[in-house]
C-alpha cells in the first residue's frame, strides 16, 4: 500500500517539477522571445501567409471573441457532418455505422468545446477517420482555443491600459506548433513503446488459451491519447478510456497520462506569473488551487483504500481497497488521485469507473467539477478561477473600505454583473438540467426514445440521482467524464447535455474576456497602502472562501440527496 501512496506523491511532485520550467517556456512563446523551437518559425510564417493573417495585428476583446466564435462555429459544422456520414466515408476498417443526428450534434458540440462527453463507445461508435480527422483534430484546436483565450487575459493584465488582447489566430497557431504538438509527439511515442497501438490496422481475432474466440479493437490510438490528456480533453479511443489496458498499459503510462493532463493548466499559472511579471500572484493562486485539490484528493484516496464497507460486511479482505471498476495495475490510490485530477482539470478521462467509486469519492468528484477552477482545463481553468477572483475582489474590497480594484483596475457594476451572471449560469444549468431530468424520469418514464427514461439509470435511489447530477455537472464543466451507468444516448440527453455544454463553454469564456477587456481599457490606478494586495495569502484565502461558500450554497441540496445521502446511509 505504501508504494501506492508514494506513487501518487511522486506523480504530483513530478508534475510541479515539469510545470514550472514549462511555464517559463510558455511565457516566452507568447512574449515572442527566443525558444528552442524557433525552427518552427518558417512553418508558422507559411501558415499565416496562406491564411491571410497578419500576426502582428492586435484585436480588442470583441474582435478577439468574434474570431474565436467564428472558427468554433466552423468546426462544429465540419464535425457534425463528419459524424453524421462517417459510415460512408473511408478509413473505417471495422465498418462502424453513421451517427444519428442527435448523437452527431452532441458529439460535435462535445469535442469542439474540449468536453469530450461520449455518448457512444469508441470501439463501435466512431471510425478511424472521425477518431483522427475530427476528434484528434478538435482535441488539439479546442485546447488551443482555451489557451488562446487565457493568453488574451494575460495581455489584458500585462499592460496598464490597453485594448489590444493579441491576435487570436496567431496565438492559436503557436499554441499548436510550439506547445501542444511537440509535447504530444513525445508522449505518443512513449505510449507506443509501452504497448499502446499506433498502426492503422483494424480489429484482430484470435483463440484464447481457454479456447474462446475473442476480438481486440486496435487502431492509431497513441497519438490521440497523448493530446487527449495534454489538451485536457479526455475523450478515449476505447470505451473504457484510460482504464483500457491498451490505452493505459502500465503504471508508468498512468503516471505520464495523469501528469500530462495537469501539466498545461499548472504551467499556465506559472506562465501567468512570468508573463505579467507578478510571480507571487501566480504562486499564491497555485497554492490555493493545490490546497483545493488536496481537500478533494485526500478523503478520496482514504475512502478508496478502505474499500466498500458493504463488501467488508460480507467478510472478505479489503487489503486491496475498493476494486469495483478499478484496474489492478493502478490500485485504489492512483485511481482515486486520477479521479480527482480529471474532475478538477476538466479532462474527464478515467482510469477507473467513477460510477463505482465510493460515495464520498463521488462527492469529491462532483465538487471538483462544480468548482471547475482548481487548475482547471487548458486555459479555461484560470478563466473560471478569475470569476471567483472578481467576486472575492469585490466583496473584500468593500470590506477594507475601498472601491474594489484588481491589479490597478477598478471593479465596478459592469464587471460584477458579468461575474455574477457567469456564476448564476452554472447554478442554472446544473440544477435546471437535473430538475428537468428528474421530472422527465418521474412523469414521462415511458417516453418513446432510444432509451426509455425508466431504463436510464443503472443504479437505483441516491446513486441514480448522482448519476444524473454527474452528467449535467460534467456537461456544464466541460469535463466529459461520466457516472457511466447513465444511458445517455437518446435524444433527451444528447440535446440536454449538448445545450448544457455549449452554454457551459462559451459564456464562461466570453464573460472573463469581456471583464478583462473592459477593465484593461480603464485608467490604471497605482497601489497605495489602502489597496488590497491580490497577491497576498489573505486574499488567496478569501478567494478560497468565496469558492467554498458559493459552491456549497449553490449545490448543497442536490449533493445531500445524491452522494451525501448515499454515504450516510452506507455508514449509518
Amino acid at each position: 500500500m505504501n508504494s501506492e501512496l508514494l506513487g501518487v506523491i511522486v506523480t504530483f511532485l513530478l508534475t510541479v517539477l515539469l510545470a514550472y520550467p514549462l511555464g517559463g517556456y510558455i511565457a516566452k512563446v507568447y512574449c515572442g522571445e527566443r525558444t528552442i523551437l524557433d525552427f518552427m518559425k518558417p512553418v508558422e510564417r507559411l501558415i499565416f501567409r496562406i491564411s491571410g493573417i497578419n500576426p502582428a495585428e492586435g484585436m480588442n476583446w470583441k474582435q478577439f471573441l468574434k474570431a474565436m466564435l467564428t472558427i468554433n462555429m466552423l468546426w462544429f459544422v465540419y464535425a457534425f457532418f463528419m459524424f453524421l456520414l462517417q459510415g460512408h466515408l473511408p478509413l473505417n476498417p471495422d465498418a462502424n455505422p453513421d451517427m444519428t443526428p442527435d448523437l452527431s450534434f452532441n458529439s460535435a458540440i462535445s469535442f469542439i468545446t474540449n468536453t469530450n462527453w461520449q455518448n457512444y463507445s469508441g470501439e463501435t461508435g466512431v471510425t478511424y477517420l472521425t477518431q483522427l480527422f475530427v476528434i484528434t483534430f478538435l482535441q488539439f484546436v479546442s485546447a488551443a482555443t482555451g489557451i488562446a483565450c487565457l493568453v488574451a487575459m494575460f495581455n489584458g493584465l500585462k499592460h496598464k491600459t490597453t485594448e489590444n488582447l493579441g491576435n487570436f489566430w496567431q496565438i492559436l497557431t503557436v499554441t499548436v506548433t510550439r506547445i501542444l504538438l511537440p509535447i504530444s509527439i513525445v508522449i505518443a511515442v512513449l505510449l507506443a513503446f509501452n504497448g499502446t497501438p499506433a498502426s492503422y490496422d483494424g480489429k484482430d481475432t484470435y483463440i484464447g488459451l481457454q479456447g474462446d474466440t475473442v476480438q481486440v479493437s486496435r487502431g492509431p490510438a497513441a497519438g490521440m491519447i497523448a493530446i487527449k490528456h495534454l489538451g485536457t480533453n479526455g475523450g478515449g479511443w476505447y470505451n473504457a478510456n484510460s482504464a483500457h489496458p491498451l490505452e493505459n498499459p502500465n503504471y508508468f503510462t498512468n503516471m505520464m497520462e495523469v501528469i500530462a493532463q495537469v501539466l498545461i493548466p499548472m504551467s499556465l499559472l506559472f506562465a501567468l506569473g512570468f508573463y505579467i511579471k507578478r510571480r507571487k500572484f501566480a504562486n499564491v493562486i497555485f497554492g490555493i488551487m493545490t490546497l483545493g485539490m488536496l481537500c478533494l484528493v485526500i478523503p478520496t484516496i482514504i475512502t478508496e483504500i478502505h474499500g466498500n464497507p458493504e463488501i467488508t460486511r460480507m467478510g472478505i479482505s479489503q487489503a486491496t481497497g475498493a476494486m469495483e471498476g478499478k484496474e489492478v495495475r493502478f490500485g485504489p490510490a492512483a485511481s482515486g488521485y486520477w479521479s480527482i485530477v480529471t474532475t478538477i482539470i476538466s479532462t474527464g478521462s478515467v482510469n477507473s469507473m467513477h460510477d463505482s467509486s465510493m460515495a464520498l469519492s463521488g462527492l469529491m468528484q462532483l465538487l471538483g467539477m462544480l468548482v471547475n477552477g482548481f487548475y482547471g482545463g487548458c486555459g479555461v481553468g484560470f478563466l473560471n478561477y478569475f470569476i471567483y477572483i472578481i467576486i472575492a475582489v469585490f466583496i473584500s474590497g468593500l470590506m477594507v473600505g475601498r472601491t474594489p480594484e484588481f491589479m490597478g483596475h477598478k471593479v465596478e457594476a459592469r464587471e460584477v454583473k458579468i461575474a455574477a451572471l457567469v456564476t448564476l449560469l452554472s447554478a442554472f444549468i446544473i440544477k435546471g438540467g437535473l430538475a428537468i431530468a428528474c421530472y422527465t424520469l418521474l412523469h414521462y418514464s415511458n417516453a418513446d426514445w432510444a432509451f426509455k427514461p425508466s431504463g436510464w439509470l443503472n443504479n437505483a435511489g441516491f446513486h441514480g440521482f448522482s448519476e444524473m447530477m454527474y452528467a449535467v455537472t460534467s456537461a456544464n464543466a466541460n469535463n466529459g467524464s461520466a457516472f457511466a451507468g447513465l444511458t445517455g444516448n437518446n435524444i433527451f440527453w444528447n440535446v440536454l447535455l449538448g445545450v448544457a455544454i455549449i452554454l457551459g463553454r462559451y459564456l464562461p469564456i466570453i464573460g472573463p474576456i469581456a471583464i478583462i477587456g473592459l477593465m484593461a481599457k480603464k485608467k490604471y490606478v497605482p497601489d497605495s497602502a489602502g489597496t488590497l494586495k491580490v497577491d497576498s495569502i489573505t486574499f488567496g484565502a478569501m478567494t478560497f472562501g468565496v469558492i467554498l461558500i458559493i459552491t456549497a450554497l449553490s449545490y448543497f441540496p442536490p449533493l445531500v440527496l445524491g452522494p451525501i445521502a448515499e454515504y450516510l446511509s452506507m455508514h449509518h
Partner: protein
Amino acid sequence: MSTEKSNKLFEAALVKDALKQSFVKLNPKIMLRNPVMFTVEIGTAVMLGVCIWIATGEKAQGSFIYNFSIFLVLFLTVLFANFAEAIAEARGKAQADSLRKTREETPAKKLVAGKIEIVSSALLRKGDVFVCETGDMIPNDGEIIEGIATIDESAITGESAPVIRESGGDKSSVTGGTKVLSDKIKVRVTTEPGESFLDKMIALVEGASRQKTPNEIALTILLASFTLIFLIVCVTLKPFADYANTPITVSALVSLYVCLIPTTIGGLLSAIGIAGMDRALRANVITKSGKAVETAGDLDTLLLDKTGTITIGNRKATNFWPANGVDPKAFIDACVLSSLADETPEGKSIIELANISKDTFKIDGAVFIEFTAETRCSGIDLVSGLRIRKGASDSIRKIAEKAGNSFPEETLEQVKKISSNGGTPLVVSQNEQILGVVELQDIIKPGIQERFERLRKMGVKTVMVTGDNPLTAKFIAEKAGVDDFIAEAKPEDKMNYIKLEQQGGKLVAMMGDGTNDAPALAQADVGVAMNSGTQAAKEAGNMVDLDNDPTKLIEIVEIGKQLLMTRGTLTTFSIANDVAKYFAIVPALFIVSIPGLQALNIMYLKSAESAILSAVIFNAIIIPILIPLALRGVAYKPIGASALLRRNLLIYGIGGVIAPFVGIKLLDMIVGLWF
C-alpha cells in the same frame, strides 16, 4: 464639530415615525426598489395564501398554527427591513428638520430700485439683492457685495463663536438661516429657491433624491444574483424531492428560500447608505451626493494649504535677537514702533511678543512707511527724526551699507540660522544702523502630525501647498509630517499638480476657500469648500465643510471607508449565515424519508417544524439586531488593507458562520416547547 448633536440611535419620536413608515413601505411599488426584500414580501403573501388554503381544509401542508407562525415571522422580516430604512431616514429627516426650521418663512428685505421691500424668502431669485441688519436672519445663500458683519452661524455649524463676513475677498459668502449679529450688509442671492445647499442637503438626507452609488449598484447586482441562485435552489428542490419520494410543504420551500437569500444585507443596504450621509452631516459636512462620500474613501492624495491648515494662521514672532552692543529693551521698542502701523498678522505678532501696550509710545505726527514689493521693507519716521525700518535682511542690509554702516557678523549668522530652521528673519534698523533681527516662525498645529500619520496609514498622501520658498516649505513639511509640498505655489500650480496625479490614476482631494481655488476644486475628485469661502468655491466643490476645518477630510475619508466596509462585512455576514441555515433546514426536509440524514442535524434540533421556524426567526431578528451597526458603521482602523481584511473576515466571516448555529440552537430550545 458639534458632537453634542443627538447620538442616540433610537429616539422615541423617531422610532414612532419609523414604525409608521415601515408599514407604508409595504407597498409593493416601493418594495420593488429592493429586489431582495421584494421577493420576501411575495413569499409572505404566498404563506398567507397557504394559511387560507389550510383554513379551507387542506391537510398535507402541516398545521395551521405552524404555517401561520411562519407567515408572521416572514411578515416581521419585511417589516424589520422597512424599519431599518425608515429609522435611518427618520434620523436624517430630524437633522434636516432642525435646519429647515431656521429658515422657514424668513422675511427678506429685498432691494428693489434702491428701496427696501419686505418679501418672503421663498420669493428671492438668483441675482436679487437684499439687505440684512443687526438681528436679521439671512434669508438665502448669497454673496456680500457691500459691508461687513459679524454673523452667528451656530444654526448650521453648532459653533457659537460668531464669524466675520465681508464683501470682496474669500470671506464674502453667507448661508441662509444664519443670523447677523452686528452691522449691515448687502447681499446678492446666488441660488434659486430650493437649490441652496441646505435645500440640497435636506433632500439628500431625507433620501428623496438619494441616488444609488456605483458601489451600491454593483452590490445590488451581486445580491440579486445570489437571490436568483437561491431561487433556483428552491424551485429545483421540488423535482429532486419528488425523485427522493419526499413530499415538501410550501412553507418549507418558502422558508428555505427566505433564509438563504441575503435578507440581512438586503434589508439593511439602504439604511447603511442613508446613515453614511447622515454621519457626514453629523461631522458638519454637507455632501452634494453619496458618491462623493464613497469617493472620499478611495482618496490617494490630499492637497492642503499650509496656512491655517498645517500651521496656526500666519507666521508669528518668536524671538528678538539684538545685535552686539544694542540694548535689548531699545531693540524691542524699535521693533514695536516699526510694527505699530503694520496690520499684517506678522506685525501684530511682534507687538504681542513684545508685550508692550501701544499707548506707551507717542507717535503723533509720525509717518508710516508702507511695505512695497520694491523696497521689501516697512517702517516709521518719527517726528523726533528717528527712522526705523523693518524688512527682509538683504533689503535692510542695502539700506545700511548705502549709509556706510556695516552689517554685524552675529546678526548675519542669526539670519542664516533662522532661515535654515524654516523661520523668517526680519531685520530691523534705526537710522540705517542694524539693531538686530526678529525671528518669525510658523506654528504647526498641535496634533497635526498624528492626523497625517493616520492618513498615511489609510493610504492617503498629503501634499502641502505654500507660497514659501522651497527651503522653508521643506522644513515645515518635514516637521508637520506631510509627504510632499508645492513651494512658491501659484494658483495654477495646484491645478497642474492635481491633473498630474490624476493622470497617474490617483484620486485627489483638495480643500479650498478662495475664488481662485474654484477651478482646482472642480478638477479634484473630492473638492471640499470651506463654508466661509466664496460662493464660487462652494459651487465648484462637491462638499462643504461647515466648520471650516481643513483636516475634516480625515473624518470624511473614514466615513467613506466605513460606508463601504459596512456593506462588505454585512454581505459577508449574511452569506456566511446560510451555512447554518442549510444545516437546520435541509435535514429537516428529508429526515423522514432518508433517516441517514440525521447525521447532518448537527445542532440536534428538536423537530423539523421547530428547526425551520427557528431558522426563519433567527433570519428575521438578526435584522433589527444589526440596525445599530448599520447606522453607526463598522469601525475603521488604519492597519493596512490585508490586516483589515483578515480582521473583518474573522469577525464577520467566521462570526457569520458561527453566530446562527448558536442563535438557531437557542431559538430551537424555546420554539421546541411548542413544535
